[in-house]
């Protein structure tokens, strides 16, 4: 490495590449192998007694999870080295070719510039997004879970697909999984549809002919969106408090009993959907109001000439326009709701508790269940398996969405 650049008389570059190459070789052969081996074995000695002279002493064993991280890191480093190597050769070849054609090589650095820009963001994403995903996927194939397989006290081992097997087939886990999954899907559909159509209705309401102070209404209705979500959710949680909350207080003032908003499984589900409407409707509203202004006036005028009713105009002009423009947003909102951690966790905490589920409550979504499994119950392998399933789902949705994306298809339009 570096010789090609030397030959091309790019000495600084040559020295740089040679240095990279030397470190790379050293790292790849002297530093990395034990880590890669650790990734395979995940350690073979737990905490154990060792005889030192006459007394036995407790010796810390291998920390399987750290070995795993090191292993994954080692693999990434190896990939980066290989990548640099390929880059070096390609660079030498192109520069060489240009030189042979008699062009000035110093002006040809343009090809490298975007990579220079991307280097740091790339590393950030690699180590804090890609690596965690790889690592999570790996954990799903181990027995890393409380109480028997938590390092540094115990070792963690590869167990193949048995985590997934437990998730799908073992009573307790599979019941919870199916239950939580079903509610997640129902929730995502209801939450998306209610906010979507709610938003459209509100936008149309404001946009009606004859309604005055449109800007005022718009600003007023956008307030729920502007308040930080965690604040409004915690406030809602208090408002819906069964004993002291103002909502039930008003019910009582009218001689009614008040409802167990967050304490009854069914009411809790209704509450989260309604509260989510309160948070989500403003977003769709703003969006739809924007779209409404882009619908050509003459369409409505033509419809008027043909004697169309309000409803017909709405169904045949307004709605198709809105649907067409917002379809991809609908998909991303659906995905967003599948992962809507805040609304559930801050409002009900996944509760009310139920005996039917393993470590989950009646309003828990897959993501909040996963969070609890990780933070509260230390069932890391199950949580990781759930994460993989969610990821597969999201990736599918994202690819569907991507095919219709503006900044993907329409680029190079403005030159």
């Amino acid at each position, binding site marked *: 490495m570096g010789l090609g650049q030397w030959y091309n008389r790019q000495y600084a570059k040559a020295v740089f590449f040679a240095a990279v190459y030397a470190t790379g070789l050293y790292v790849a052969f002297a530093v990395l192998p034990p880590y890669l081996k650790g990734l395979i074995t995940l350690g073979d000695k737990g905490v154990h007694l060792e005889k030192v002279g006459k007394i036995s002493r407790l010796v810390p064993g291998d920390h399987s999870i750290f070995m795993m991280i090191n292993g994954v890191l080692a693999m990434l480093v190896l990939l980066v080295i290989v990548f640099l190597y390929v880059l070096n050769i390609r660079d030498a070849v192109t520069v060489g070719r240009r030189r042979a054609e008699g062009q000035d090589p110093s002006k040809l650095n343009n090809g490298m510039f975007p990579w220079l820009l991307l280097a740091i963001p790339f590393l950030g*994403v690699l180590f804090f*997004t890609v690596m965690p995903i790889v690592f999570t996927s790996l954990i799903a194939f181990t027995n890393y879970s409380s109480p028997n397989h938590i390092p540094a006290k115990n070792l963690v081992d590869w167990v193949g697909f048995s985590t997934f097997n437990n998730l799908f087939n073992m009573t307790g886990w599979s019941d919870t999984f199916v239950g939580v999954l079903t509610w997640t899907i129902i929730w995502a559909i209801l939450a998306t549809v209610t906010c979507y159509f709610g938003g459209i209705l509100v936008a149309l309401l404001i946009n009606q002919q004859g309604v005055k102070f449109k800007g005022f209404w718009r600003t007023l209705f956008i307030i729920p969106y502007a308040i930080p979500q965690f604040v409004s959710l915690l406030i809602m949680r208090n408002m819906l408090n069964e004993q002291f909350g103002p909502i039930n207080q008003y019910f009582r003032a009218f001689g009614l009993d008040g409802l167990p908003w967050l304490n009854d499984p069914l009411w809790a589900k209704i509450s989260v959907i309604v509260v989510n409407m309160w948070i989500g409707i403003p*977003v769709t509203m703003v969006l739809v109001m924007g779209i409404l202004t882009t619908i050509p006036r003459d369409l409505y005028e033509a419809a008027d000439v043909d004697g169309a009713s309000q409803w017909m105009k709405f169904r045949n002009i307004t709605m198709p326009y809105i649907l*067409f423009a917002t379809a991809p947003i609908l998909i991303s909102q659906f995905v967003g709701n599948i992962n809507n951690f805040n609304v559930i966790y801050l409002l009900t905490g996944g509760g009310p508790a139920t005996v039917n589920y393993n470590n989950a409550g009646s309003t828990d979504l897959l993501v909040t269940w996963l969070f609890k499994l990780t933070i509260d119950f230390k069932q890391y392998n199950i949580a*990781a398996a759930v994460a993989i399933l969610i990821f597969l789902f999201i990736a599918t949705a994202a690819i569907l969405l991507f095919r219709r994306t503006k900044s993907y298809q329409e680029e190079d339009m403005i030159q």
Partner: protein
Amino acid sequence: MKPKLLVSYVLLALIGVVSIYPALWTVLSSFRVGNSLFSDTFIPKQWTLDHYMDLFRTRGTRDIQYAKWFWNTLQVAAVSTVIGTILQLLTAYAFSRFRFKGRKPMMMVVLILGMFPGFLSIIAIFSILQKLTLLDSKWGLVLVYSAGSALGMFVAKGFFDTIPRSLEEAARIDGANNMSIFFRIILPLSRPIITYISLMTFTGAWVDFIFARAILTSRDEWTLAVGLWSIIDSYNSTEFTLFAAGCVLVAIPITVLYMYTQRFLVDGLTAGASKG
């Protein structure tokens, strides 16, 4: 007035009340004497500023370090904003302006990863930070917030796409290199998008609950989101008026910022969307 329009106004007023009620109720509660959630009247009978002052006093009986949390949150949000915005701008610029090998597949990867909520791999992030001994530290949190920020680059990329290329070509003919084009032509033109990105990153870090809750374990290091949540969770609404005052102080800067940025909202939402 036509009856139909009257119905519309009634509906609008109703929605308006529903929209503003929680906020109004919280603000009023924060001025109410006493500490309970329960009150006889909507508008407090006696007004007080005690709860606001109380937030910044320490009392032996409870552990609410509001000032400390506020300072933590501010630090985390500010540093994440600076790093995150820079990373995001660089990424967006590279993808918008240069055609390099593997660009489209990489954009696909960015989109997929961007839709993947980071907290799904929280176990891994947890372990990595543990390894870096950055667990339970706000700098670990900053790292998490800013490292992935490049994934949100589509809005900025959409913006860069609209800057005419002829500007750059003209500059190039005048002998400008890539660096000076970026700093002297693109950046000055991008002030709106820079404002947008930094506000988004700032508010994102300011209001994030999940990572803060998972990564910060000692009360000293907490951010406001975790702190306020714990007031509700552990004091079980017995310190409600105090909580309300805390909420008002957290919400004011963000709410003002959001009202100001709402004109960007549509752009942000539709950046990844289909052609209309």
